[in-house]
């Protein structure tokens, strides 16, 4: 069985658990993102059909919450904290530097799909502001030099493994 089929079976189980109820849309989108990693249009159309909810409504809900990802995330994810403390401490400059250095806009991935740049509202580590999360590692009191070096390291790390 292909990976795709397995995922569909898992989704079907979730749908059944909720008895295909319209009111379970949010929970089902949550679980679908766990299973697939992100919510693409085919998947949203599938959920819309299964729950008999208009596609535009499903899309509206999925885009209302920033938690849901509609694009495939890159292999490596860099998340900048745009909470108040980090903002005051100049995270914006670091984000701009990262955008320039790696030619990626916030909320998007590089064309080769290797790096995504995301923003979040406060990761709860304000004492360490400004903070940037590279993959799962939190960089506190970040500077653009440290962050760019760290990203280069994780991107370069893969290449070394591939060799």
């Amino acid at each position, binding site marked *: 069985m292909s990976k795709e089929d397995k995922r569909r079976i898992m989704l079907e189980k979730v749908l059944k658990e909720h008895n295909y109820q319209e009111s379970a849309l949010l929970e089902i989108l949550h679980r679908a993102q766990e299973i697939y990693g992100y919510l693409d249009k085919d998947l949203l159309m599938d959920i819309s059909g299964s729950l008999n909810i208009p596609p*535009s409504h499903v*899309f509206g809900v999925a885009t209302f919450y920033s938690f849901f990802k509609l694009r495939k995330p890159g292999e490596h994810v860099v998340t900048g904290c745009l909470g108040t403390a980090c903002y005051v401490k100049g995270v914006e400059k670091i984000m701009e530097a990262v955008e320039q250095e790696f030619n990626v806009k916030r909320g998007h991935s590089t064309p080769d799909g290797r790096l995504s740049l995301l923003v979040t509202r406060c990761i709860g580590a304000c004492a360490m502001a400004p903070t940037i999360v590279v993959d799962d590692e939190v960089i506190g009191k970040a500077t653009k030099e440290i962050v760019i070096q760290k990203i280069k390291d994780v991107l370069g790390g893969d290449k070394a493994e591939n060799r």
Partner: protein
Amino acid sequence: MSVNLLKLKIDGVEVSVPEGTMILKAAKDNGIIIPTLCNLEGLAPYGGCRLCLVEISGSPKLFPACITPVGPNMEITTNSDRLKEYRKMVVQMLLAERTHICSVCVANDHCELQAMANQLGVDHVMFERKFTQEPIDSTHDFLVIDRNRCILCTRCIRICDQIEGVHTLDLKLRGKDSEVIMDLDEHWANSCSCTSCRKCAKVCPVGAIYIEGEPIGHTKNKEIAAFIRDRRNRR
């Protein structure tokens, strides 16, 4: 079925209206017009535009008249100086939020936002104007949507859902990024559920949805929702 009538005062006038009536409707039935841009007879009230805010004595809060039901012995003020100021501010925020330039708009002279600004005496916009430049979707055979002129009243969405029944339209994202979408944010021509019924264009208060080549005064029809609802109820 007996209807419970409530007695209340609107702008000092004593009126009695059935329980459950919204303040906006109660006022209208008694000849008091409260300004609104999102409310439309025949569609479920939405409470989005905030133009119908009224004062109810005993509370410092303002209440949206379209979604606030009447209560016994309420004393409602619909047109105080404070409300006038707030309404002017709301219209200015609507004008600042996107790209509203009357002279180059299809709805010029047939626009409810324009009329509202005139009626309320809005002569300047004191907020920074955004002048959004979203691409126009004219892929459909004759329906066009220019989201830069949209005020997010959701009349088109509600009529598509509640009257036409297909729910092709909805809102995506939120806040200033909100946009009216078709199905999964498709181009209009690719929408699989749209029946091209034109009702969205008929109720759009501004020039955001219009019919290509048709004079907008001919397209617009605010009564269509109530008309269809009443015809359906006859059966």
